[in-house]
């Protein structure tokens, strides 16, 4: 669907994108993650042909990106808004026509979406007369009304209230089911972890992680578990040397909760064999790093490397 090849973007005093490459599969939900200033918005603006890259190439559906693709992309920018004094209907019509729809086609599609989102009564209203939540719905419809093949959402859930967030999430998933490829760009990892199939992590203009969410998590698993048990009120269980290291210990309602990391070459089963004779185990859970943890860990690593 979308091939990002060695994209470089330089501004007068800094590099916004440094040789970034990745692929977005057709029909996937793709997460473009990174802290503020990592280069996400710069890259998205290049995909939307708002700015041109200083180097590299983008391939859209097998063709070099060109103005014909504008009508195939839907874009919800981070900095978004509408003409305050313009009537909603006219405004939708204007934006849809700018995306290349004919007037009758645009009217048909807008009416369809307005019905779907329960907005029929808003056609003659002005944006300034709508509540924030209503404006957000209008904004979303404006982004998808031309049935884009690729939908790019930059920080889509900031500024949306919880009800609208759910509503729009649902619509986004529906669009994805019907074949729309979706790129989420955000610095709030937790919001996309459950949605995205594939993520790319940008930091300081460079790509630092690229892969399927499950695979990345797998890579970053490090044999850490939490284990809860009862017993041994008077006697502290000491970690067996070579078997595991104790990271954290808490006492709660008569239970002890240990967070521990199993050492090579042992497995969690060995730890259990060691503990079972001594205590009564109530729970065991593997600590899988969240994308957020991985992200923070990676960014910190990069920063310390840079400082050394």
């Amino acid at each position, binding site marked *: 669907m979308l091939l990002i090849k060695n994209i470089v973007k330089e501004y007068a005093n800094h590099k916004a994108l440094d040789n970034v490459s990745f692929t977005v599969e057709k029909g996937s939900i793709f997460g473009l993650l990174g802290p503020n200033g990592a280069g996400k918005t710069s890259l998205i603006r290049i995909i939307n*042909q*708002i700015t041109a890259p200083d180097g590299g190439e983008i391939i859209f559906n097998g063709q070099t990106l060109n103005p014909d693709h504008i009508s195939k992309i839907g874009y919800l920018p981070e900095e978004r*808004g509408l*003409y305050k*004094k313009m009537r909603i209907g006219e405004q939708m019509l204007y934006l849809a*026509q*700018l995306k290349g729809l004919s007037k009758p086609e645009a009217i048909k599609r807008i009416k369809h979406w307005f019905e779907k989102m329960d907005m029929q009564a808003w056609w003659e209203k002005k944006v300034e007369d709508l509540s924030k939540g209503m404006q957000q719905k209008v904004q979303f419809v404006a982004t998808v009304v031309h049935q884009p093949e690729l939908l790019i959402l930059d920080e889509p859930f900031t500024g949306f209230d919880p009800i609208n967030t759910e509503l729009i999430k649902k619509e986004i998933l529906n669009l994805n089911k019907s074949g729309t490829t979706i790129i989420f760009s955000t610095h709030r990892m937790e919001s996309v972890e459950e949605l995205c199939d594939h993520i790319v992590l940008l930091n300081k203009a460079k790509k630092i992680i690229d892969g399927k969410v499950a695979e990345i998590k797998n890579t970053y698993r490090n044999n850490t578990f939490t284990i809860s048990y009862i017993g041994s009120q008077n006697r502290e269980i000491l970690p067996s040397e070579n078997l595991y290291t104790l990271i954290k210990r808490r006492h709660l309602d008569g239970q002890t909760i240990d967070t521990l990391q199993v050492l090579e070459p042992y497995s969690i089963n060995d730890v259990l064999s060691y503990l079972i004779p001594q205590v009564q185990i109530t729970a065991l859970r593997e600590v899988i790093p969240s994308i957020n943890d991985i992200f923070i860990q990676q960014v910190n690593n990069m920063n310390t490397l840079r400082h050394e």
Partner: protein
Amino acid sequence: MNKVILIIKREYFSRVKKKSFLLMTFLVPVLFLGMWAGVIFLSIQDADTLTTVNVLDESGLFGTSLENSGSIHYNMVAGPVEQEKGNISQANNENSYLLIIPEDVREHQKVELFSSGNANLFTQEQISSQMNTILREFQLREAGIDVNLLAKIDPHIRINSMEITEVGERENHAGATMGVGMFASIIIYITLFIYGAQVMRGVIEEKNSRIVEIVISSVKPFQLMIGKIIGIGLVGLTQFLLWILLSGALFTAGGTFLGDQMPAQLENMAPPESAAMQNDMLQDVQQAMASIDFPYIIGTFLFYFLGGYLVYSALFAAVGSAVDNETETQQFMLPITMPLLFTYLMAFSVLIKDPNGTMAFWLSMIPFTSPIAMMVRIPFGVPAWELGLSMALLIAGFLLTTWIAARIYRIGILMYGKKVSYKELMKWLRY
């Protein structure tokens, strides 16, 4: 191209449909007509009220020679001075005057006029003019000159200045020509600011409401900018056209209504001996109006309005894109307003006196100053090559400022919350 038309349409109709546009369109001609009618009405009113002038003639030279004229009535009084002054102040009527002519009026040529309110300048003018005539005749007679003979010898030469042009000779009416030139350049000066500022405000509005990034994900920033500029320019043209049509209609209607009263009014106002001059003036005005080539002037006016508008509105758009709100525009406005203001001031001092001088030539060539400077010169006649060169340079200037503006604009509209300096703007030009 289709998208630019969509943008032009939105910019145009969103403004033309506004109530303020309709109000401006209809109110301005009505206001003009109202002012014109008001001036005439007031002067008629003034003429109708009778002014009484009590004359205390200590010299005995004027006596009954002062004749009631127009609205002024003379009334000989005997004094004494203090009592007469008292009468005037008690009358408490602004139209009562006391004129005291001292004995030595011939030597010092000075009289005193008392009134309870402000003395009307028009009345003063009429009194002094009549007294001058009387005194002059008296002195002529004393010197043994036949007054009647002198009256017959009254040469009155009028200069009919002709301009030799390629087409032939044509009459030259410097006054009217000057008037038309000034009027056109004032209008251009004002409208460049009005419509330029509208472009700037439009850009700031799009930036502030954060719609701009959505729009430029569909069209190029340049298309958005040029669409806005053209759309607002068309609004300006529409407004001019409606003004011309409406004023024409209103003045024709108003003119026929007031036309009957005007000549009588003029006669009332004028002292009898200058009636001939008044008639000459009227004739001159009519001839002058007829001598002005209105289609040519309106045509060039529209060209220079559009050209000037395009040159400046691009710069206004660039300024709008570089700031977050209108208060921040101040620092960038100076270089835009300076050439306009300079030309405007020059137009009224140097250009109007010497419309074919070096200064006039250069100011009417430089695209930043030519819209105003050339409009002052055009009614006086400008050689075709100069006009052609100036127009070509204006178009070149438009292309240049648009190119510069576009480079600033495409970066500026995506910059939020950053105070931009001139240094920064120069950087934007380069990348």
